């Protein structure tokens, strides 16, 4: 239940929702119009920024190419495997550190230190270690993706209200019961926010890995088209990557709304 200060009548609320939706669509249209008109009028060199219509055509023709599905599948695999392994790793390590305080105290300096390193610097190293194939990209995706899950798992588990734990203790609950019935579910909204970030990070990891050294994948294609100055196709690849990132984000957002219905920081 909202505080009375936040009450608005539903008609006003709906009208406002519509204004904002129309406003967002408006801004989108303005951006597309500028993207189309600036190169067309010669204000921006079309080689640097091809107009939107050319990118749309390039996107369409690229998707018709026989080699395209293969590259898409490679990158998609890297992202998904990296995301899943990274999430599981982050969850596993985060839970262990949160429920085992001495492990946390021992390893926390290293966790913080490792977090401070821009993980991208490892990309050439991973190529040397794991070769030009998918493995090096998956490892890169895992290394980048697991951190937000790790940190959010630890923060989430540590933010469990002490009264809730005390309630469980007064019922003589076992540590395992306290974890599964209270702590984990309490931390879940925060953990899930980390998982959402992990997906975006997995996309970055896979693409960076492909940039540094690969013979297949969307990152490889993007690099190739850049070198060939086929900027319209490069933009088409970017649109595809953006779509993968956005699709993953919205699917996770939908899952979040469906399963974490008790989340407090959500108004509707």
């Amino acid at each position, binding site marked *: *239940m909202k505080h009375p200060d936040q009450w608005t009548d539903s008609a006003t609320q709906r009208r406002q929702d519509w204004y904002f939706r129309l406003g967002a669509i408006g801004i989108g249209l303005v951006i597309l119009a500028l993207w189309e008109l600036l190169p067309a009028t010669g204000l921006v060199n079309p080689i640097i920024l091809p107009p939107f219509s050319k990118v749309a055509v390039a996107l369409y023709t690229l998707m018709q190419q026989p080699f395209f599905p293969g590259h898409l599948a490679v990158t998609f695999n890297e992202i998904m495997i990296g995301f899943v392994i990274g999430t599981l790793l982050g969850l596993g390590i985060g839970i262990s550190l949160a429920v085992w305080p001495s492990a946390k105290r021992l390893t926390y300096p290293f966790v913080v230190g490792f977090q401070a390193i821009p993980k991208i610097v490892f990309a050439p190293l991973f190529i040397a270690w794991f070769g030009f194939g998918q493995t090096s990209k998956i490892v890169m995706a895992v290394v980048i993706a697991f951190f937000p899950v790790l940190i959010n798992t630890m923060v989430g588990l540590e933010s469990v*209200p002490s*009264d*809730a734990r*005390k*309630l*469980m*203790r*007064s*019922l*003589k*609950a076992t540590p395992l*019961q306290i974890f599964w*019935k*209270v702590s984990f*579910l*309490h931390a879940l909204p925060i953990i899930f926010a980390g998982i959402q970030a992990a997906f975006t990070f997995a996309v970055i990891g896979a693409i960076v890995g492909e940039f540094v050294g690969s013979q297949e994948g969307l990152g490889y294609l993007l690099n190739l088209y850049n070198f060939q100055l086929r900027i319209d196709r490069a933009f088409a690849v970017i649109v595809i990557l953006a779509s993968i990132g956005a699709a993953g984000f919205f699917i996770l957002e939908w899952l979040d709304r469906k399963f974490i*219905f*008790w989340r*407090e920081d959500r108004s509707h």
Partner: protein
Amino acid sequence: MPNPKLQLVEAPFAGASDQSVIQTRSISKIFSLPEGPVTALKDVNISVDKGDFVSFVGPSGCGKSTLLNIIAGLLPPTSGTAELYGDAITAPSRRMGFMFQTAVLLPWRTVEANVLLPAEVYGLDPKSVRDKAHSVIEAVGLKDFIKAYPKQLSGGMQQRVALARVLTYEPEILLMDEPFGALDEFTREAMNLELMRITQKAGITCIFVTHNITEAVFLSDKVVVMTPRPGKVSGVLDVPLPRPREIDTMKDPAFADLIFDVRSLLGRHI
């Protein structure tokens, strides 16, 4: 300030009756903090009789919550023992139910599922407890909210769920740490009346921690007055007001006298 009604601290329960359910024997609790040791409780001897409603009242830092936690088996004393029917309390017991200042409901569980949480922890079949749970939820006035989630309930209603969660398991002793302290005055008054009605009817022994003198006197058979630095019992007051008590009880001149007696036991601490 001679007052025949006041018992002195020294050996307040030297002749504790056979009826005593809870007894503490010279309990002390010292917390070691970075700035040095703090004596939260010093040599506390109290006794609670079966079916009695006993309040611990005192200002912040008098150790009333610490004492309650020790009795609940949630905190070990530094020295001395707390006893339940003569046996030392070393861990929480199912014979005692605990209520907090906030309802401590799990937001992903409905009212019913929250009330059934202890059953799961105790390893009982929730189905076997469900009927009992429903009748208790009905008794606290939440019949229409069995399937509601906590965030759909007001603070008072949430605390009623907490009450139902504890009463469903028929504790012999109910330990309450300022259970209605977070509620507004009107809701608190209504909850107090309801609490008295239910616990009297079921014959539950109650220990109630509060810093509200009026509330303590209104509810209790016995008021344990505590003072801080170090936390100790400065006196125990019997409240012979007749039961059942209603709001009218507060008009009784004896009620005002009792409140004044508690104040004088608190002495310079208020």
